[in-house]
């Protein structure tokens, strides 16, 4: 099983993440595949791709034992849907990695409910975060997590609307 690292398609480079991954490479499941997007990087050890087609992207996530990603909402959702606990490293505006700090907040809050493991200082704490993510991924309680309540709320709402429609149609 592999490690899949993704930087998304934001235009700002994010070398801080790839550098941290390269530093702990020896400890990660191999091969380590990096979707680098707009971050130029050359490496003798990492497999670097810039972009990939969506089906291929999802397949990489599904096959990976470890997923390390920038804190983009789309990628996080794909990873969680595939049953992974991604390690997320938020891009920061102060390093010109993104226009604002919304990734920081998202990563922190999803981390609180154990959906992701967030790490703001990957240069120091990335390996620790990877180990924690692997541990949560293997816990039985995580695997049997139920359907999010909001889905049931919307489902009930739609059923109510459907009944109203049928009622109206029946009356006319």
């Amino acid at each position, binding site marked *: 099983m592999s490690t899949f690292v993704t930087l998304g398609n934001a235009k700002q480079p994010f070398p801080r993440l790839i550098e941290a991954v390269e530093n702990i490479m020896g400890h990660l499941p191999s091969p380590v595949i990096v979707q680098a997007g707009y971050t130029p990087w050359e490496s003798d050890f990492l497999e670097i791709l810039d972009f990939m087609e969506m*089906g291929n992207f999802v397949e990489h996530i599904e096959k990976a034992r470890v997923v390390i990603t920038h804190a983009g*909402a*789309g990628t996080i959702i794909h990873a969680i849907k595939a049953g992974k606990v991604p390690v997320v490293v938020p891009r920061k505006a102060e390093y010109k990695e993104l226009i604002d700090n919304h990734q920081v*907040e998202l990563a922190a809050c999803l981390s609180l409910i154990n959906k992701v493991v967030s790490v703001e200082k990957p240069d120091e704490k990335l390996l620790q975060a990877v180990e924690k993510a692997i541990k949560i991924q293997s816990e039985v309680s995580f695997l049997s997590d139920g359907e999010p309540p*909001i889905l049931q*709320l*919307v*489902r009930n709402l739609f059923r109510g609307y459907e009944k109203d429609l049928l009622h109206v149609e029946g009356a006319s």
Partner: protein
Amino acid sequence: MKIAIISSAGGHLTEVRCLQSVYSQYEHFYVLNHSAILPEDMKGRTYFITHSERDMKFFLNLFEAFRIMKKERPDIVLSTGAGPAVPFAIIGKLFFRTKIVFIETITRISKPSLTGKIMYRLSDHFYYQWEMLKPHFPKGTYGGTVL
């Protein structure tokens, strides 16, 4: 019953598709604001409208929304954002008595989005995913995260 799912391409689309198990049992179609490589199940059921971002192209979107709504006549408009939800909500409410259902995006935790603030006024049912938003959406429903 027919559902129109309105979304920006990218993360918002990924997010609204978390609700697929809820809407796919009904007749449904998508509207996106940017071309994208579509998953199989979206092919043949997706419209594309002009990409506008807080500019005059919004008015073009109103015409595009009217054309699509008139042809499809959905009973419900569902969206998590971003901007494309607004013209469809306006047209839906003005002309077609469509029910507007909006879910504030998962990425908005402590402060609402601009689309969220507008859609709060336009929607029949408004959900938000993080409790911290309650003071901003007193008549909305807290639903927890879509994941």
